[in-house]
C-alpha cells in the first residue's frame, strides 16, 4: 500500500484527495436522505404491521386510502390554507421592511433591524407556547381586549377553528418575517445606488422605483425565499403540535402532525399508510420547488 501510494502521480494524488474530502458528507446524505426516501416509497406500497408486511394488492392501496381519510384531507386543506395566506403576507411585509430599512437617511437602522430579526432567535416550540399562552381564554390578549371594551366576554381563540387558524398564521408571520427580511436586505445591498439615481432622473416615483427596479432585481431572492417558505410551511409541525395540538377537532392539524400521530401516536403504527402520506408530502415539496425554479428562471 505504501509503495503504491508513493507510486501515485501528483495528479492522481490530488484526484484521490478531492474525492476523499467529499466522501463523508456524500455518504451521510445518501444514507440519511436518499436511502430513507426510497425506503419510504417502498414501504408505502406495503400493508400490515411490524415485520409482517406484504406488498398491498393493488399497490396503490395506501394512496387511495389517503383520499378517503377525512382527517388527512382536512390536514392537507389546513396546510395549504396556511401556505396561501401566510407566505404572501409574510414575503410582502419582509420586502417592504427591507426596502424601508435600506434608506440611507434612516436613523436607528441597526436597532430596528435587530428588533424585527429577534423573533428568529426563539425556537419553534418556544414561540408556539408563548403564543398559546398569550391567546389563552384566560390570557393576555383577552384581558387587553376586555379592558379596551372591544369584547364583552372572553374569546376562546384556540378552541374555535377560525380563530385558531388565525393565531397560527399570526404566530408564523411574527416568527419568520424578520428572517426573510434579512435575505432581502442582503439582496438590496447588491443593488448599486446608481440604479436608483438613474430611476430618479427618469422621473420614477417611490412606488414605481420599487416595482420596476427593486422587485425585478430581487427576483432571484424572492424565488429563493418563496421556495424556502413553501417548503417550511408544507412541513409545519411544531406549531400545530404545541400551539393548538391540531385542535379543535383537527381543524388546525397539519400534514406532518397527522403523519407523526399516525406513525408514533398511541395504538397506531401502520407504517405503509404513514409512508404513503409522507411520500405525498415529498412529491408536493418537489413539485412546488420545481415550479418555483421554472417561474424564477432568470435566463429567460
Amino acid at each position, binding site marked *: 500500500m505504501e509503495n503504491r501510494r508513493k507510486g501515485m502521480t501528483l495528479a492522481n494524488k490530488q484526484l484521490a484527495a*478531492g474525492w476523499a474530502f467529499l466522501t463523508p*458528507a456524500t455518504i451521510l446524505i445518501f444514507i440519511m436522505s436518499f436511502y430513507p426516501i426510497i425506503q*419510504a416509497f417502498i414501504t408505502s406500497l406495503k400493508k400490515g404491521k411490524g415485520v409482517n408486511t406484504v406488498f398491498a394488492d393493488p399497490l396503490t392501496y395506501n394512496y387511495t386510502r389517503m383520499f378517503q381519510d377525512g382527517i388527512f384531507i382536512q390536514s392537507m386543506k389546513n396546510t395549504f390554507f396556511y401556505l396561501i395566506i401566510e407566505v404572501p403576507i409574510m414575503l410582502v411585509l419582509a420586502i417592504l421592511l427591507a426596502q424601508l430599512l435600506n434608506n440611507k437617511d434612516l436613523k436607528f437602522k441597526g436597532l430596528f433591524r435587530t428588533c424585527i430579526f429577534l423573533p428568529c*432567535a426563539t425556537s419553534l416550540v418556544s414561540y408556539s407556547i408563548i403564543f398559546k399562552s398569550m391567546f389563552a381564554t384566560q390570557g393576555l390578549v383577552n384581558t387587553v381586549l376586555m379592558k379596551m371594551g372591544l369584547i364583552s366576554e372572553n374569546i376562546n381563540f384556540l378552541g374555535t377553528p377560525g380563530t385558531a387558524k388565525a393565531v397560527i398564521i399570526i404566530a408564523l408571520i411574527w416568527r419568520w418575517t424578520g428572517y426573510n427580511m434579512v435575505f432581502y436586505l442582503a439582496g438590496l445591498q447588491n443593488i448599486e445606488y446608481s440604479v436608483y439615481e438613474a430611476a430618479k432622473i427618469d422621473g420614477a416615483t417611490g412606488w414605481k422605483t420599487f416595482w420596476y427596479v427593486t422587485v425585478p432585481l430581487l427576483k432571484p431572492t424572492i424565488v429563493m425565499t418563496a421556495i424556502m417558505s413553501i417548503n417550511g410551511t408544507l412541513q409545519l409541525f411544531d406549531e400545530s403540535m404545541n400551539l393548538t395540538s391540531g385542535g379543535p377537532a383537527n381543524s388546525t392539524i397539519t400534514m406532518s402532525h397527522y*403523519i*407523526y400521530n399516525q406513525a408514533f401516536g398511541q395504538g397506531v403504527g401502520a407504517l405503509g399508510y404513514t409512508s404513503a402520506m409522507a411520500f405525498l408530502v415529498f412529491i408536493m415539496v418537489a413539485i412546488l420547488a420545481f415550479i418555483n425554479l421554472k417561474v424564477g428562471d432568470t435566463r429567460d
Partner: protein
Amino acid sequence: MTKKNKSMVQRRLIPTYIFLIICSLISVFPLYWMIAAATNTSLNVARGSIAFGNQLLINFEHLKNAVQGTLWSSLGNSFLYATVQTIFTLFICSLAGYGFELYHDKHKDRLFGIILLAMMVPAVATMVPLFVLISKVKLLNSVWAFILPGISTPFMIMMFRQNSRNFPPDIMEAARIDGLPEWKIFFKMYMPVQKSIYAAAGVISFMNAWNAYLWPKVVMTDNRAQTMPMFIANITSGYTVDYGMTMLGVLFCSLPTMIIFFILQKQFAEGITGSVK
C-alpha cells in the same frame, strides 16, 4: 446637504419611523412578555399583568420539579447534542465544500447536483425509515441518534462551496511545490483563513440543532435523553398550565440562542443567507 434639507428628509420619513417602531414593538413584545411572565404568578399572568413580579424563585422551584425533575438534564442534553452536531457539521461539510469547489471536475459537479436534490426531501418523509434504521442499530436515545441526520446538509455544503471560491488555487499550488500533503493544505491553510465562514456556519448549525423538535421527539423516547424544546413542550401538555413556570421554562430554552443572537447577530445573518452569493 443643508441643515434645512436634512430636517425635511427626516420629516418625510416620519411615517416610516412610525411603521418601523410599531413593527419593532410587535416583534419584541412577546419576548418581553415571556420574561415578565416568568417572574409572575400564574394568576397574574392570566390577568394580563405585563409588569415584573416577585415570583421568579418560586417559579424556578416548580420548574425544577416539572417533568420528573429533568430541567438540568434537558439543558445539558441540548448543549451536548447541539455542540457535537455543530462540530461534526462544520468539519464534514467544510471538507466537502472545499473538495467540491477546489478539486472540481465534471464528475464532482454532477455529484453535487445530485446532493442538492436532498434539499427537496422533507424531514417528515424520512422520519419513519430513519427511526427504523436508528433503532435497528440500537442508537435510540443516544447523541448519535440526534446528530446523524443533521450533520451533512446540502445547505451547509453549498455554503462552504460558495465561500471556497475566494480561496486562491495559486496558494495551493505553492504549498504543493513545498511538499505539503493535500490534507495539510486543508487544515493548515484553508481552515484558518475561512474563520468567518466557520463562525457563520457554526452559529446557524448550533441554533438549528438547539431548536430541533420533530426528530428528537421521534428518537429520544426516554425522558432522560430529552432536549430542552421537548422539556418545555412536556410542561404544557397537562390540563392546567402554570403560566409563570412555563414561561420560565421557555426563557431557559430561549436564553442560549438569544445570547448567541445578540453577540453574533452578524454571523447569524450571514449564516442564514450564507449559500446565496
